[in-house]
């Protein structure tokens, strides 16, 4: 059995997690602590990928990521190579797809932080920027970890979006979920079963870890 798709899935999940946690933390900070007009509209927009069918999301991504599309054209102008049907392309797609899963646990953790802590920080002269790094982040480590793990397993299980924008190129965009689908289509049930057998315990272990982390957050400290 070819293990490349599994390795590719892990690589995709890892890259998406790192980028997304860094991206989502300031966004969540904005949502929790900063007041601005149209906030609820903005928040609903960020949560949209969670409820949209992956095919709908994939369809729109396909349109904007082609060399004629807005993002595709921008990407090609900056990097010199096309975005669609590349590993970078499915990373971009995963970032959109998993964004709400990064924000939700982070938001819960940020909201739990005692406001007085932040107020004291401001009184002591910390800027919102340094308050974010010195007060919010250290007090929300469990939330950040939970969101990282959630993004990781969610991306690991991503199928519909990648089916639309990936193009199933071996070693590039043919991730485990696609490889399993293709194995079933081609009647290679043994290969499909083997890959599933690896994916299930991995996902289960990570979920277990999330439960542990969030529990400690409630009863601990």
């Amino acid at each position, binding site marked *: 059995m070819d293990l490349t798709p599994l390795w590719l899935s892990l690589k995709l999940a890892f890259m998406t997690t790192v980028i997304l946690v860094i991206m989502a933390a300031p966004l969540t900070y904005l949502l929790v602590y900063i007041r601005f007009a149209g906030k609820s509209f903005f928040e609903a927009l960020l949560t949209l990928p969670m409820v949209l069918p992956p095919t709908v999301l994939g369809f729109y991504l*396909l*349109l904007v*990521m*082609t*060399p*004629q599309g807005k993002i595709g054209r921008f990407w090609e102008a900056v990097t010199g190579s*096309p975005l*669609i*049907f590349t590993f970078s392309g499915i990373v971009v797609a995963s970032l959109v797809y998993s964004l709400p899963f990064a924000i939700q646990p982070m938001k819960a953790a940020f909201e739990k932080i005692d406001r007085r802590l932040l107020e004291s920080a401001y009184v002591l002269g910390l800027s919102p920027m340094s308050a974010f790094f010195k007060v919010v982040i250290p007090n929300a480590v469990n939330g950040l970890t939970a969101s990282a793990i959630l993004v990781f397993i969610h991306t690991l299980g991503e199928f519909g979006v990648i*089916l639309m924008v990936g*193009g*199933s*190129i071996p070693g590039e965009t*043919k991730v485990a979920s696609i490889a399993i*689908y*293709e194995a*079933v*289509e*081609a*009647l290679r049930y043994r290969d499909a079963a083997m890959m599933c057998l690896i994916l299930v315990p991995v996902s289960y272990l990570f979920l277990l870890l999330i439960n542990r982390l969030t529990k400690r957050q409630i009863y601990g400290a």
Partner: protein
Amino acid sequence: MYRYFSIILAAFFIITGSGGSAIAGEKLLVAVAANFILPSGELTEMFQEKTGIPTEATYSSTGKLYGQIIKGAPYDIFFAADEKRPNLLNEQGLCDAPFVYARGQVVVWTANTALCGASTWQEVVKNPAVQKIAIANTESAPYGTAAMIALQQVGLWDTLKDKYVFPQSVAQAFQYAESKSSDVGFCAYSSALSDKGKKGCFYTVSEAPPIVQAACILKRTGNRSAAERFVAFVQSPEAQKIKEKYGYR
């Protein structure tokens, strides 16, 4: 609280009850490979008009329909995009002897009219401006397999290796080419004849073996006489005209 619950419960029964009015076994259920969707729509409509037998077609990839059938899906006839799957069902005693109902042809299709001046399909795919070539999954999609055979035969399969994109079906291959996500696509002749297909140009890939599409009546059908009438209709000269209109022989 009770009120809401009873409303939801009532809605549930209305929704679940409404679909069950037709008696199972009366309606002819046909499983059809996705590439045949256009002619099939016209054929089933014509058949219903002529015979009054309600007929419903389900469209999916041949591989998926095959998987559903061996797990007991309630279809009466299976129209595949290849000969392999009907033969396999026949060997397992799940369907009658398969018969050929259509032959498809692989074409190279592009939306980029700058490529349309070429004289052969090889010239099109070898053009350095071509970065991505869409080929349906070579393992499960018959059109993909045929395209691969043609490329191997003319000695281009390995040379162009870095440019391939593998959509799941021949329909997705056309969608990639049509949206210009890929520069060219190995598509079905029937797609090239469609309204969208007319916006680009196509080259017949004569090296690709014809896509022989076979069908068979499933043994589990409770509707054998209707199924046999449908099969006879699909092979009639009248139906042949419709198939030709959509690019099948």
